């Protein structure tokens, strides 16, 4: 009998190797994912100094240059150029900056709002809890993309609107989890003792509750980074998010879509950037969760 397919153990080992290299082995630090994430953040911080060209620089003579390794490519434009001769690599770097800034603002704001409301609901219980829980239910009954359409129709487009829309759909996530956490924290002795000692409620929140929530908030924030980037890319792809001349990965995909038949790199490269950034933050988030909060492997 002749065996033409790859023998099973070898295929298994290959897959295991690939998985481990991405994930950093069982419980190990995901080096590859962390360096991708660090690269995205470095582009966000130092983008204008790293980028080989200016992101908006038009050079019609160089339009539609394929990536350097393709026939007709040039080492001056490593990832090629678009229909206006703008350098794709520089635009990817500029897009990283926009994506990271939007994601950071959105995560910090929705985290703060969610944490405060979740803490209040869990700590006070009763009417406060009922009100906030209903608010969460209502918020979650409108799917986030239609909700985004609604506000995109009435607010001026741009970074601030994108951040607002993301905060609107994401704060419930923090609020629900923080609420659950506080429900169990408030039964603990140190909170009861603080209350008996007459510590003011805001001080209990800041000194006693918040430090115990930091780990879970950090894990949630990292896990959300990727999802926020994908959401923002979707909005910008529809033309409802980041507006030109600002560069965004979703916007690059929308531009590239018109040239799908002639320039494959215009729609593959920005997508790879979105995928890499999201995958990296998910993997680092998974690692943080397993390390800081082993109980909660479900989220």
């Amino acid at each position, binding site marked *: 009998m002749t065996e033409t397919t790859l023998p*099973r153990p070898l*295929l*298994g080992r290959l*897959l*295991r190797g*690939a*998985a481990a290299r*991405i*994930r950093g082995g069982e419980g190990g630090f995901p080096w590859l994912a962390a360096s991708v994430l660090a690269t995205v953040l470095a582009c966000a911080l130092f983008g204008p100094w790293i980028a080989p060209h200016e992101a908006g620089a038009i050079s019609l003579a160089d339009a539609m240059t394929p990536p350097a390794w393709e026939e007709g490519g040039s080492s001056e434009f490593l990832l090629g150029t678009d229909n206006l001769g703008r350098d794709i690599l520089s635009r990817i770097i500029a897009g990283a900056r926009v994506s990271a800034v939007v994601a950071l603002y959105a995560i910090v704001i929705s985290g703060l709002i969610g944490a405060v409301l979740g803490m209040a609901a869990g700590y006070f219980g009763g009417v406060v809890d009922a009100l906030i829980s*209903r*608010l969460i*239910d*209502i*918020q979650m*009954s*409108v*799917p*986030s*993309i*239609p*909700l985004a*359409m*609604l*506000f*995109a*129709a*009435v*607010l001026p487009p741009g970074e601030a609107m994108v951040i607002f829309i993301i905060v609107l759909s994401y704060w419930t996530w923090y609020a629900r989890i923080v609420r659950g956490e506080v429900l169990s924290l408030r039964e603990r002795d140190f909170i009861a003792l603080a209350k008996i000692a007459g510590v003011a409620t805001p001080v209990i929140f800041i000194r006693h509750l918040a430090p115990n929530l930091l780990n879970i908030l950090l894990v949630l924030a990292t896990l959300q980074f*990727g999802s926020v980037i*994908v959401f923002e*890319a*979707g909005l910008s*792809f*529809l*033309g*409802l998010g980041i507006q030109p001349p600002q560069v965004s990965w979703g916007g690059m*995909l929308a531009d*590239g*879509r018109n040239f*799908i*038949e002639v320039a*494959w790199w215009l*729609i*593959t490269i920005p*997508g790879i950037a*979105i*995928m890499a950034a*999201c*995958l990296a933050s*998910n*993997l680092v988030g998974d690692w943080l969760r397993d390390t800081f909060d082993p109980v909660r492997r479900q989220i």
Partner: protein
Amino acid sequence: MKVYVLKRIAQGLVAIVGALLIVFVAQRLSGDPVALMLPMDAGEEDFAAMRSALGLDKPLPLPFGIFLGNALQGDFGQSYQWNAPAMQLILERLPATLELAMAGLVFALLLAVPLGVLSAVHRGGAIDRAGKIFAMLGQAVPGFWIGLLLILFIAVELQWLPAFGRGDLSHLLLPAIALGWYPVAAMTRTLRSSMLDILESDYIRMERAIGLPERAIVWRYALRNAMAPLATMIGVYFANMLGGAFVIEVVFAWPGVGRTVVEAVFARDFPVVQAGVVLSAVVFVAVNLLVDLSYGFIDPRIRHD
């Protein structure tokens, strides 16, 4: 059980009224809502007439009451772009969106069921590991990008399937894959873990002892019971797909609710946007309600007391 059903229905209604409140607030955020509702060339009398019709010249609770009353009758005003009632326009596009979401669900199940079962049966094997990698990628790759790649490779390079529009099955295939892509990972993992539990249970051991063929045990007896957790997820994912269809419909020029709403946003046709958003919230709440109520039927061990 009866109390539970009534309570869930009441919660659903509160959620829908809440969604209407969000829509109302959004309308108010834009400054003068009448400016959104009337065409660009409307005169001053049109503005005044519209204002009094909506109760905008009265104290605040009243306009919301009127808005709510109209909304409950499905009246969100006229689309000035198409000169037809906004909700009617949206309802006309709904079958196309439902068709796409159903097809997406079928695609997700066709991929997730065999993958989930085989990952559980050959636990730790090549398929299981491939499933894990797929699950990681699935969460990180946006569906609309999968859609663009499908157009690039299948429609443009290979020319196997059409890239745009709605028509026969060949038009449905690519958008269904792009839309169904996202839930595959979660469905596979859910089915895998429930299959693992069931394959270790006593009655499966019993069937093995009797000497039933392994294939029948896995695919007929174990799978039927392992489907329960997946079945409850199906409704939730179906509801999510109706929202996700907004972007996919634009990618593939699919004439559904999503594309209509996106176009209405650009045309500043606010009544249509409102109608589309409210309809997707209603469908979302209704599907989730049905799923919750069906738990007891799918898995009789769950009782709502």
